[in-house]
């Protein structure tokens, strides 16, 4: 039934289009019959002749193209108007009248801010006429940052977009959240990534150790290759992506060739970096005082088994382990080269880049990527046929170790812990009294990723206003991880029991897409109409192979499976995914004042059981440019632009496991079968209803632009890996939960051209987001598995805590309130709820141009709560835990004698665990983790070269760039941006780079 309905709709749309446009062709053809005269002339620009300019008669498709010397000739009627146009130049219109020779000079186009074309995926729209919420950053704003992940460059630049890099390891995936968490599942909140029209799986590639949060699937893309990144936020912008648009859409557009002189561009930079933060810990005298006092308090005599740090280790050593193990200078180099050029009809860019970054760890570790790209564009002389082809191939190599314990171990290692090496240069095990931290670094992990992305777009305009277009895309990512566990990483006393071993993890993700579309565009008197209708077919296949091997005779043979004694394969899976859709859009524009945009999509996905595979999504967006109204123009001349807009619609999400809908068994290692999944065939799409209202204002001829939006997104029919108690045999099941998560908030964007004179220009931009996440509805939550995890009326990222009673001045131990006085501590006693989401955040950017100098900086600010040392150190002060025993200096204020009033409990190794772990789950562990960070600052100088068109060096720019220069915060952890308090991650690097950009 539904299928027929959609078909009928489509037919109606198409026939409407047909009926509407038909009279136009007839008129055009009739004009041909009349007499014409020959017009000729030359086209120039400020530098000389301009070849291959398009000349056509206004209101008519017919036209010609000037030759290489700028000459043209065309047949036209005296009442006709000629239009001269060339990419990058302002078109010129000249009415013929009695002229027979028309010479024209074209001027470089200066695009007003509001006239910038914004990519909306299946169509483009001028910023001025946008009905939806799309924000854009361009190459110039992001290209200089010494970063691996393209999306990391967006930090602080966009309202409503949180980009968080939980760990500062090169190649790790940034977490990007557009307008908050919609899904109850933490892995159901990835936005849709589209590169040049081709969707890329946005889930991080699984990693381990320091890369445990996953690797960035976009890391092989070069920053220099990106032309712009657009983020689609509201229903109007995202509904055309239907089931995949719920969490927003990230559109990456790569550089395209431009007609004109053949150019070579070179960019080189090199930089130095260090961790942007260190953690204060105790010195040896303080540490030993703590440990001695702890054992005294416990009444335990220090022995080799319970206190090697006191009994065996050299108490005169005082090592700064952070300096020793994570203090290396990071060297960054980047080289890129590109050639571009082309004729009027055909253009190209061909380029490549090489990026390398070492690490803060001692040893031969580092990250490097190499990539190459080609883009070709061609169109026929009559502009009817267009073809664009681009392809990118990127290779990255990430060489690190796989143990994730290093950052935390480094902080917590006793300051008097033994030497790393013996006098012979071997790892020192100090008579088996410790685990040498360098042993973790001997367990190497090499990850090589190869990504190919190719896409072609072919279009043909059969007759005026109609265009048939097809996008074809192919992407393949191949990531291979090899982890090496050599004997030399072990204490020699256990060598007889372990062997050289390794494990391997191979992931491939491959996807084909095909998107035939029919586009229609017509402007008739006051009404403009744009429409698209199309189909998407996507066929993906992911494979995953995990294996391990052991028994290698020699360390240098590890990894060569032929040399292994045993090889085990634990995972070898192939997961197909198929997706299809029909989509459409109709945009109406009345006099540039009233705008209406309708979008819709019908989606089908193989992730659902056959009965629930299809669903419909759609949105409506409206805008009124009220500054066009006469009364406003007369009475408020300061207001140069004013727009009110709103949108409402639905999007969805199918980010769930494949084959989740049936009960299944998997093979055990010995060839048996064991239940692996509990399935439910009934679940279907998650639905996200988005509402947005916004106003844009421009003042002083648009020198100041302000954009304020209010949004409310409600995500319901939540698809969750529903937690099950283990008594069911499983810990989760895929199901729709009748719960509603709301994300609402305000976003404010402000740009201003503060000063503009001939040789000085100062621009400021500012953004502010005030998000609010709330679980607004969850019927019968008390009877559900989520009874104790989420609370209606609070944020999904809120945490429930005990109420701290501080340190009992008699016993010296932490206490928390037993609210129900039942003698035990459970969730019912956790009566304090704290929202750990950002309360507000944004960025503040300034750009100065003075003569040939350019300076810009970006400040990022975030207001939020975080966790303190009680959570970070995980171990009670005085205890030597498995990760170490050092502590923050704040613990020195500990309780010592009955009657002491303090908020640090007594040092204790044996009796401290329970009170400590409870206090770590209390409000005493909450701190203000707000921060202000000078994210980037760059200074560049353009060499004053003579502007001659045939000069060898056209442009030369020298730049100096700083990243993460300063952070102001009360949070004493690694990085306030990661407010979990975890010490297991790395803070971002503070990097300075110096470079040069040349155009030849």
């Amino acid at each position, binding site marked *: 039934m539904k299928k027929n309905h959609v078909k009928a709709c489509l037919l109606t749309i198409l026939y409407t289009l047909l009926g509407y446009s038909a009279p136009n062709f007839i008129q055009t053809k009739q004009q041909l019959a009349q007499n014409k005269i020959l017009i000729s002339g030359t086209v120039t620009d400020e530098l000389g002749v301009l070849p291959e300019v398009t000349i056509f008669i206004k209101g008519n498709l017919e036209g010609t193209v000037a030759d290489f010397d700028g000459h043209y000739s065309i047949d036209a009627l005296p009442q006709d108007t000629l239009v001269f146009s060339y990419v990058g130049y302002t078109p010129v219109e000249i009415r013929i009248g009695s002229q027979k020779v028309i010479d024209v000079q074209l001027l470089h186009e200066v695009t007003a801010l509001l006239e910038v074309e914004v990519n909306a995926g299946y169509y483009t729209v001028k910023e001025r006429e946008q009905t939806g919420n799309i924000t854009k950053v361009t190459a110039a704003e992001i290209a200089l940052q010494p970063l691996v992940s393209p999306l990391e460059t967006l930090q602080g630049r966009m309202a409503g977009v949180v980009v968080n890099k939980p760990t500062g390891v090169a190649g790790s995936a940034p977490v990007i959240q557009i307008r908050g968490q919609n899904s109850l599942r933490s892995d159901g909140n990835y936005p849709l990534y589209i590169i040049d029209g081709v969707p890329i799986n946005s889930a991080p590639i699984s990693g381990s150790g320091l890369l445990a949060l996953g690797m960035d699937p976009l890391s092989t893309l070069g920053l220099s290759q990106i032309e712009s990144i657009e983020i689609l936020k509201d229903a109007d912008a995202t509904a055309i992506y239907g089931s995949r648009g719920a969490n927003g859409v990230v559109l990456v557009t790569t550089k395209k060739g431009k007609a004109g002189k053949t150019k070579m561009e070179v960019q080189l930079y090199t930089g130095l970096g260090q961790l942007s933060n260190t953690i204060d810990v105790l010195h040896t005298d303080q540490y030993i005082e703590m440990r001695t006092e702890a054992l005294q308090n416990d009444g335990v005599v220090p*022995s080799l088994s319970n206190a090697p740090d006191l009994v065996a280790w050299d108490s005169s050593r005082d090592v700064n382990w952070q300096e020793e193990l994570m203090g290396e200078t990071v060297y960054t180099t980047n080289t890129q080269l590109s050639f571009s050029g082309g004729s009027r009809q055909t253009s190209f860019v061909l380029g490549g880049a090489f990026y390398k970054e070492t690490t803060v760890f001692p040893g031969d570790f580092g990250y490097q990527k190499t990539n190459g790209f080609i883009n070709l564009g061609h169109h026929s002389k009559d502009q009817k046929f267009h073809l664009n082809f681009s392809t990118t191939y990127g290779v990255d190599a990430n060489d690190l170790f796989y143990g994730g314990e290093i950052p935390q171990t480094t902080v917590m290692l006793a300051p008097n812990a033994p030497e790393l090496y013996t006098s012979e240069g071997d790892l020192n095990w100090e008579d088996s009294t410790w685990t040498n931290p360098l042993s973790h670094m001997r367990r190497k992990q090499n990850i090589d990723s190869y990504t190919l992305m190719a896409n072609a777009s072919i279009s043909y305009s059969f007759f005026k206003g109609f265009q048939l277009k097809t996008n074809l895309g192919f992407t393949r990512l191949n990531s291979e991880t090899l982890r090496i566990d050599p004997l030399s990483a072990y204490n020699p006393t256990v060598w*007889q029991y372990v062997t050289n071993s390794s494990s391997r993890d191979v992931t491939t993700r491959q996807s084909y897409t095909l998107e035939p579309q029919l586009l229609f565009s017509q402007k008739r008197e006051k009404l403009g109409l744009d429409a698209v209708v199309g*189909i998407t077919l996507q066929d993906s296949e992911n494979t995953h192979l995990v294996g391990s091997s052991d028994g290698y005779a020699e360390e240098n043979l590890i990894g060569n499976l032929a040399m292994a004694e045993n090889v085990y394969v634990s995972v070898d899976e192939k997961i197909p995914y*198929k997706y299809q859709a029909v989509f459409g859009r109709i945009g109406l524009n009345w006099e540039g004042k009233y705008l209406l945009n309708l979008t819709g999509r019908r989606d*089908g996905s193989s992730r659902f059981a056959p009965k629930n595979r299809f669903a419909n999504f759609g949105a409506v967006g409206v805008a009124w440019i009220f500054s066009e109204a006469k009364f406003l123009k007369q009475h408020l001349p300061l207001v140069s632009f004013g727009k009110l807009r709103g949108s409402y619609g639905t999007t969805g999400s199918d980010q769930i496991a494949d084959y989740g809908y*049936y009960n299944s068994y*998997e093979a055990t290692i010995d060839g048996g079968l064991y239940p692996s999944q509990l399935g439910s065939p009934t679940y279907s799409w998650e639905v996200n209803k988005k509402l947005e209202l916004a106003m844009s204002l421009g003042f002083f001829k648009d020198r100041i632009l302000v954009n304020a939006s209010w949004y409310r997104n409600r995500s319901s029919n939540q698809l969750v890996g529903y937690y099950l*108690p*283990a008594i069911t045999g499983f810990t989760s099941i895929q199901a729709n939960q009748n719960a509603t998560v709301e994300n609402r908030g305000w976003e404010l964007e402000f740009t201003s051209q503060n000063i503009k004179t001939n040789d000085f220009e100062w621009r400021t931009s500012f953004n502010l987001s005030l998000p609010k996440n709330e679980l607004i509805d969850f019927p019968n939550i008390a009877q559900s598995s989520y009874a104790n995890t989420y609370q209606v009326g609070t944020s999904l990222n809120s945490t429930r805590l005990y109420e701290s009673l501080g340190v009992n001045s008699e016993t010296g131990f932490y206490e928390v309130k037993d609210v129900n006085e039942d003698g*035990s501590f459970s969730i019912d006693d956790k009566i304090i709820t704290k929202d750990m989401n950002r309360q507000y955040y944004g960025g503040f950017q300034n750009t100065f141009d003075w003569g040939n100098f350019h300076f810009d900086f970006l400040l990022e600010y975030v207001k939020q709560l975080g966790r303190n040392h009680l959570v970070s150190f995980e171990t009670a002060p005085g205890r030597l835990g498995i990760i170490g025993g050092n502590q923050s200096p704040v613990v020195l204020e500990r309780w010592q004698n009955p009657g002491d009033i303090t908020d640090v409990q007594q040092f204790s190794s044996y009796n401290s665990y329970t009170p400590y772990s409870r206090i770590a789950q209390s409000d005493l562990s909450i701190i203000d983790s707000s921060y202000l960070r000078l994210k980037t600052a760059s200074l560049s100088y353009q060499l004053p070269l003579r502007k001659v068109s045939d000069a060898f060096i056209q442009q030369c720019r020298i730049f100096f760039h700083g990243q993460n220069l300063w952070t102001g915060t009360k949070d004493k952890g690694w990085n306030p941006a990661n407010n979990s308090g975890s010490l297991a991650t790395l803070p971002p690097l503070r990097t300075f780079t110096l470079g040069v950009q040349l155009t030849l």
Partner: protein
Amino acid sequence: MNTLYKLQLLFYLGIVGTLITGCEEYVAIDSSNSSIVSEDIFESATLTEAAIDGIYQQLANLNSFAGGSQSSVTVLAGLAADELVASPYSPTLGQFRDNEILTSNGMNYTLWSSLYSIIYATNAALEGLENTTVVNETLALQYQGELQVIRTFCYFYLVHLYGDIPLILSTDYTENALATRTDSALVVAQMETDLLEAIGCLEETYRTDTRQYCNKSVAYALLARVYLYTEQWDKAALFASAVISNNSTYALEEELDQVFLKNSTEVVWHLEPNYGYTNEGNLFILSESPISSYINPVYLDETLFGIFDVEDKRQSNWFGAFESDAATFYYPYKYKVQITTGEATEYSVVLRLAELYLIRAEANYHTGDRTSALEDLNTLRLRAGLPIATESGAAILTAIKTARRKELFTEWGHRWMDLNRWQEADEVLGSFKENWQSSDSLFPIPEQEILSNPNLIPNEGY
């Protein structure tokens, strides 16, 4: 002209239409290459056998309560009693040793969930067998019996470690997710029913040449243990005898280093390890100081070594020692292979004849047959190289209790459950451990379980 344009349009419409119509089929995908739909398992005799096999393999798995690794009953109950000590580097294990187990303890959760995971698998297989037509009837009965024994085996530990626990006999997760705690008497009754039914189903002989698949004797042995714990002495003695008397199959090994071998005649039920060594051997045998070891974070409490007489062969044969410069650490050396890449020579022994002698001795003592009790006790003493016991009266019971501690140390949490069963935990552990409280005799229901099932209430004291 007009017609031509219209024809072109119709052509596009044709393409679009065709694609839309063809679509519904498009999103169908092939079945997965790495899993099998549950319904298909019991449509095939081979797959059914593999599914039964899978349960046994899962029992021996590293994360299983029966796996002999860190989260196994053997280790965690051994720590909670007076057998094992945990490295200070391992706080999760330390909580068991200190009897200060947090509800969030990960080992406790692994222990709990692995028990219920096996229960689900047995329930699923029992449901599958009920409807199958492809497995022949004798074999189906045998499978059914094996599954009932395994399910009982799981419930035995659940009841004795956690007290009242949800009794789950189906695979319906919607119902099970909200299950409440069942009175442990009812759980024990179900265990008895299952074992009696299993006895009716199971063959006398083992299915293969090893003793890894349950036969009738396994059901007898487990039933004897269940009756011992419920103090039904006559029945306990009866079922223990049913195994002991089958001397063509079962006999005590003369040499102590033969007991845990794959071919041991003393074994009633053992599990084939996943690799060439048992997890017990891999964990217990010390190759580095347990104080700073990730691999071997547990060692024996030195008091245990002290209770053995010097001439007791078990002390010399079943104890290992690791000398570090300052201290000697003892470890259980019942399993001698720590790691090998070769074939397994040792299997993880679940039930062995020695335990049945001890069950019968204790049961007979209580029924008043003290001669038989002493006789069984002395059978084991003789093997250990000790003189025969001549105790009388209540001293016999004390001797049996000590014999259980010595014979069955670091096997399956016997000591912990015995102390609780004899109600001696307060007396023995109260003087032995600093923070002992009576409520410590039950492990806590894991926090995650309480969080995800509003009907589960925590154990007292947690």
